[in-house]
């Protein structure tokens, strides 16, 4: 990835447009027609359209980030309203690139259709 040297040295540049995760949508829990299993979530990843590609993401860590009214303490930073639920991609789901994930705490129903971040670590490249 060769890029031309920028004229301005941006040394302490916070990762502004630095997205280091793959966007995904929480499309629902694993389910049959009439019953659902809340412990396992189905994520639809951006730009992943088949089972082979989805396999790459298995094992990667996953976060659901959301905001709440009350501020909570954050390790090493000021208390903030941003909260997250972490999880991992457990396996692929179906043939068109969806993926199953399990979170430390089951996702709330309000997360349906919301953005979930699929991180690039633990990496194996």
């Amino acid at each position, binding site marked *: 990835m060769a890029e031309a040297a920028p004229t301005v040295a941006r040394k302490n*540049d916070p990762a502004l447009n630095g997205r280091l995760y793959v966007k995904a949508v929480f499309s629902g829990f694993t389910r049959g027609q009439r019953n659902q299993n809340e412990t396992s979530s189905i994520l639809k990843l951006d730009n992943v359209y088949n089972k082979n590609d989805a396999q*790459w993401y298995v094992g990667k860590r996953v976060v659901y980030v959301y905001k709440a009214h009350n501020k909570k303490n954050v390790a090493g930073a000021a208390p903030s309203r941003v909260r997250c639920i972490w999880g991992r991609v457990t396996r692929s789901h179906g043939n068109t690139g969806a993926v199953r994930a399990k979170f430390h705490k089951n996702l709330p129903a309000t997360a349906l259709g919301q953005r979930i971040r699929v991180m*690039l*670590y633990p990496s194996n*490249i």
Partner: protein
Amino acid sequence: MAGAKKATPRFRRNYELATGIMRFSAARMYHKRGTALNKKTKVAKKAVAPVAKFVTKKVGGSKNGGDRKVLVKKGPTFLKEDHVLDTAAKVRRNPKVQSLRKSITPGTVLIILAGRHKGKRVVFLKQLEKSGLLLVTGPHKLNNVPLRRIGQSFVIATSTKVDVSGVKLPETLTDAYFKRTHAKVEKKGEKADIFASGHQEYKVSEQRKTDQKLVDKAVLTAIKKHPEHKFLRGYFSTRFSIRKNQQPHAMVF
């Protein structure tokens, strides 16, 4: 057998009947050999004061016979055989250091995926022996990443490599050097204070600065020798990020 040319196959005097079970026990063999008869050592019998095995103790109650004989030395409550599982070989915990991925060799440019330096491209120097963590450097001048440790899982190895064979790392760069030191916690009601203030201010030690300069100087000259050094400078200064419609699973790093 001396002298016998065509001796009929003969079993040894003592032989194995089944795995570990000999025909004659060691004691039997000792007597069979006849050495016992030649032994003349005789130990003079020491006069041993007879130790009372029982002690008579009085017992209450009119119908209980008045006294009991109590053993002076009680045998073990549990036989050794009951504790076989307890004495199972205690395995020494020697966790292996995580093996380095084939794509990571000294001089590889890595992309850091997490932490305050996420997205930054960094030069891999070596894997530390004790922890297995990767020692990397920015170089600091290019992207503000100091000599630092990272775990292998939090890193993508690119195919870009810098020839760092000429870089001599100081012997002092070990896990102990990088280990975090926590200031002693004052327990006099200061607990709440520490959590609220967050980190204690980290001050870079002079040793770190000199080591950084030393290593970076060598690394920067190595980068200059690279055929694409003109682009590498900018490469190191910019962060990696995923853009629209990019597919990490299909990318060749």
